């Protein structure tokens, strides 16, 4: 029986319940998503590779297992697609770049291996900004487009993940985040993105951008689905020595809908400044909803937050330039021009700049420790602007736009998470008046390894609002 379009927009948790109850066939669900991918990808460019044969084979196997009573868990039989920067054994892994456009790894990333073990179905590999740092316009596979307005960017670098989820081309994805690359697309596409604590999820098999800032984490349509995914992919991995051996909690326990007694920190400066008026209104309204649910709002301050992006940029680009040193020497012409520009320029950073940035990082860590003595979660906007139109190729080729000037501080609300390693969750909290109506996101920061409290607040907020139920004006 054909699967109704409404089912494709259901949260994975609900799809999983239907599969477990044998009311939904993994084969039919997978076929329905593959058909939607085929219909929408020419317009959205979310997928670089569609693994239809693999998906159908895995779905058939899942169905056989479930019929025989061997149900693996809530992701069994659910399709997903990772950003094409996660190595998948025997399947093209491009990093969104012409430099690695034909690479077929002979190994599997830990994340995709764990998802396969949980019975998830690999539908394909998703578009991204080249090496998670390109323009998204001149990159090797062209830009993904925002389903809420195809002329606009879904942000990046996990651009295809944001697009595919908003357009219901898959219910689950994995993105990566070095300065905000999970949370930016979540913010612009009206979906949920989690950058969990550094060390919570293995980065083995994920192509490096910057070792000390890189994270790979869930991108989903609901907070509960992010919790489900994290449950599967979290935990120690001997192949990634940065992963912690701490026990992974049961995240489903956090989905209570109850935030009474929690203290929500509201920064008094920097992270809440320079917002577009509609974003400021949506942010304040979201805070009011959380307060209405029984949480307490408290003022907090991160005195050096305005340095987070500049310092983070130095660390990210210096580490990236070191990582790509050989490729830049042997095949510079294959890089996206803006990637080459950034990496070339980073080679001229002084070592003292890198160390200074790492000292700023220490300050930020100390300041966030202080913040979390005053509150349980810190709430900031997902970003400070609405999704912008896709750039022209000439504009997209350089950071030094004609007539532009450098600001002393780059702003932004996401790099703080990478600089401190702290977890941060973005979820939809409104839409612009439009037209076109464009998503607006709320970002919640938590204590190290306390993703549970983020899920608790995010899920409660989600239950009290319906932003996550909206669908973009896009039909097959």
């Amino acid at each position: 029986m054909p699967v109704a379009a409404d089912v494709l927009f259901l949260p994975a948790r609900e799809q999983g319940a239907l599969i477990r109850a044998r009311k939904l066939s993994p084969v039919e669900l997978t076929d329905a998503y593959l058909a939607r991918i085929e219909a929408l990808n020419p317009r959205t460019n979310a997928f670089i590779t569609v693994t239809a044969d693999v998906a159908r084979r895995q779905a058939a196997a899942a169905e056989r297992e479930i019929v025989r009573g061997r149900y693996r868990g809530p992701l069994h039989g659910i399709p997903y697609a990772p950003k094409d920067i996660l190595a998948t054994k025997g399947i093209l892994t491009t990093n969104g770049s012409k430099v690695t456009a034909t690479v077929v790894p002979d190994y599997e990333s830990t994340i995709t291996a764990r998802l396969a073990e949980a019975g998830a179905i690999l539908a394909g590999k998703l578009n991204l900004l080249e090496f998670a740092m390109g323009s998204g316009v001149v990159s090797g596979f062209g830009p993904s487009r925002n389903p809420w307005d195809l002329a606009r960017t879904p942000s990046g670098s996990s651009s295809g993940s944001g697009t595919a989820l908003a357009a219901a081309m898959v219910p689950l994805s994995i993105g990566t985040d070095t300065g905000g690359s999970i949370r930016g697309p979540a913010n612009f596409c009206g979906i949920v993105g989690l950058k969990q604590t550094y060390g919570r999820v293995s980065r083995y098999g994920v192509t490096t951008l910057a070792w000390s800032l890189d994270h790979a984490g869930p991108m989903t349509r609901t907070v509960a689905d992010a919790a489900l995914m994290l449950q599967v992919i979290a935990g120690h991995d001997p192949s990634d020595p940065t992963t912690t051996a701490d026990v992974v909690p049961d995240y489903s326990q956090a989905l209570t809908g109850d935030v009474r007694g929690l203290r929500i920190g509201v920064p008094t400066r920097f992270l809440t400044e320079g917002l577009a008026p509609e974003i400021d209104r949506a942010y304040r309204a979201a805070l009011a909803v959380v307060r209405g649910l029984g949480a307490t709002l408290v003022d907090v301050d991160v005195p050096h937050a305005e340095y987070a992006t500049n310092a983070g940029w130095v660390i990210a680009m210096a580490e990236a330039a070191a990582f790509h040193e050989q490729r830049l020497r042997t095949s510079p012409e294959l890089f996206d021009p803006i990637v080459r520009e950034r990496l070339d320029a980073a080679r001229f950073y002084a070592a003292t700049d890198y160390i200074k940035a790492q000292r700023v990082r220490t300050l930020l860590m100390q300041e966030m420790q202080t913040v979390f003595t005053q509150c349980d979660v810190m709430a900031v906007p997902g970003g400070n602007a609405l999704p912008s139109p896709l750039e022209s190729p000439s504009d997209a080729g350089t950071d030094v736009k004609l007539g532009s000037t450098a600001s002393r501080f780059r702003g932004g609300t996401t790099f703080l998470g990478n600089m401190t390693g702290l977890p941060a969750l973005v979820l939809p909290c409104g839409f612009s008046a439009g037209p076109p109506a464009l998503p607006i996101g709320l970002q919640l920061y938590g204590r190290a390894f306390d993703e549970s409290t983020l899920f608790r607040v995010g899920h409660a907020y989600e239950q009290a609002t319906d932003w996550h139920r909206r669908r973009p004006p896009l039909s097959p």
Partner: protein
Amino acid sequence: MNGPDPSVDRRAVLQILGALGFGAATAADLAAQARPVVSPGTLQQAATLLDGSFDAARLGVAERAVQRNQEHMAAMRELVLDDAVEPAPIFAPSR
């Protein structure tokens, strides 16, 4: 090589401009303009020290980008940190 040092102490410039009655934003803009400019010659020399793999076109692009980086980094370079602030610990010897 032996000409006067073109570098300008930014804080001193801001103080002078402030004393002349310029507002903070204007003073910051003017001080930014007083910062040394990355020239093709200096970048070429630095590139040679790196490994000399830059061709003229790449060096031209890098020149603009390095100049922009200088401007972005100015605020961080001016930030005065307590001597006790060490770089963030990213190396775990126990592992």
